[in-house]
C-alpha cells in the first residue's frame, strides 16, 4: 500500500499518467461545457419567474460549485503536504489556487450581472454573495503568501497552514454571514424559491458542471506539469523528456 502511495507522490509517475489523460479531459470537458451552454442558452425552456435571464445559471452554478470545491481540494492537499511532505500535494495547491481565484471571480461576476435584471441591483450584501467575496479574499491571501516566500518548500508548508486555517474558518464565516444577514437586513431580495427544476433545465446544468470539472482537471494537470518541469529540471528524466520532445 505504501508503495502505491509513494508512486502517487512521484512527479515522474504523475507526469506520465497525466500526459495520457489530459487530451481526454480537455476534449471531454470542452465538449460537455459547450453542450451544456448551448443547450441552456437555446433549448432549455424559459423560466416562468425570471424569464430568460435565468440562463446565466448554466455558467454561474458551475463556477460557484468549482470555486468552493477547489478550496476543499486544496485543504485536503494541504493536509497531505503537512503530514506526508508529498511534493505533488504542494504543487497541486500552488497550481490550483489561481484557478480558484478566477472561478470565484467569475461566480461573483455572473452573479452580479444576473442580479441586475432579477433583483434590480448589481450587488446586494446577501449572505451567499458576501461569503463568496470572502472566499475570493482567502484565495488572494493564499496566492500572495505563496508569491512572497521564495523558498519552494517553506512556501508550500506555510501556504498549507494558511489553507487549513481558512478551511476551519469557512463554516464559521458562512454561518456568521447568514446570521448577520438575517439580523441586519430584512430579506427584501432573495433568490426566488427554486421551483423543482424540470429535466430540460437540470440536465444541461449537470452537463456544464461536469464539463467545468473536467476542464479544471486539465488545468490542474498542465499547471502541475509546468511546476514539475521547473522544479525538477536537474533530474535526468526531465532532461530526457525535454530533449526527446525536440527530435
Amino acid at each position, binding site marked *: 500500500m505504501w508503495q502505491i502511495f509513494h508512486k502517487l507522490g512521484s512527479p515522474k509517475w504523475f507526469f506520465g499518467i497525466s500526459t495520457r489523460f489530459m487530451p481526454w479531459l480537455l476534449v471531454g470537458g470542452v465538449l460537455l461545457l459547450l453542450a451544456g451552454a448551448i443547450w441552456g442558452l437555446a433549448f432549455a425552456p424559459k423560466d416562468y419567474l425570471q424569464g430568460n435571464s435565468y*440562463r446565466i445559471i448554466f455558467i454561474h452554478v458551475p463556477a460557484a460549485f468549482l470555486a468552493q470545491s477547489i478550496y476543499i481540494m486544496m485543504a485536503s492537499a494541504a493536509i497531505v503536504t503537512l503530514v506526508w511532505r508529498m511534493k505533488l500535494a504542494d504543487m497541486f495547491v500552488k497550481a490550483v489556487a489561481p484557478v480558484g481565484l478566477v472561478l470565484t471571480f467569475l461566480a461573483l461576476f455572473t452573479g452580479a450581472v444576473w442580479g441586475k435584471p432579477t433583483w434590480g441591483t448589481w450587488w446586494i450584501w446577501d449572505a451567499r454573495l458576501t461569503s463568496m467575496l470572502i472566499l475570493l479574499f482567502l484565495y488572494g491571501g493564499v496566492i500572495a503568501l505563496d508569491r512572497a516566500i521564495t523558498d519552494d518548500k517553506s512556501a508550500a508548508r506555510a501556504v498549507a497552514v494558511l489553507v487549513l486555517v481558512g478551511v476551519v474558518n469557512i463554516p464559521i464565516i458562512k454561518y456568521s454571514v447568514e446570521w448577520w444577514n438575517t439580523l441586519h437586513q430584512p430579506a427584501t431580495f432573495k433568490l426566488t424559491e427554486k421551483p423543482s427544476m424540470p429535466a430540460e433545465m437540470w440536465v444541461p446544468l449537470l452537463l456544464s458542471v461536469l464539463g467545468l470539472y473536467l476542464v479544471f482537471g486539465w488545468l490542474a494537470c498542465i499547471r502541475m506539469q509546468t511546476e514539475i518541469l521547473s522544479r525538477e529540471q536537474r533530474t535526468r528524466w526531465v532532461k530526457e523528456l525535454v530533449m526527446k520532445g525536440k527530435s
Partner: protein
Amino acid sequence: MAFDSFSAFIAMDGHGPYVWACYAVFFVLLAVMMIGSAMAKKSVVESCRRGYEFQAEKSKVATSKPSASFARVNVSQD
C-alpha cells in the same frame, strides 16, 4: 429551440445584454486561463531545453581542448 427566431435568441426578451455579457466573460476568461497555462508550460520546456543545450555545448568545448597546451585555459568552477 426555445426561441422563435434568431433575433429573439439574441435579444432574450431584453435580458440579452446580461446573458451574453456573462457568457462572453466566462468563456473568454476560461480560454485565457487555459491558453495561458499551456503557454506557460511551453515556455518552461523551452527554457529547460536551452539550459541543457547550453550545458552540452559547454562540455563539448571543454572536452575538445587538447590535453596539454600552453594556451591559457579558462577553468570554470561549476
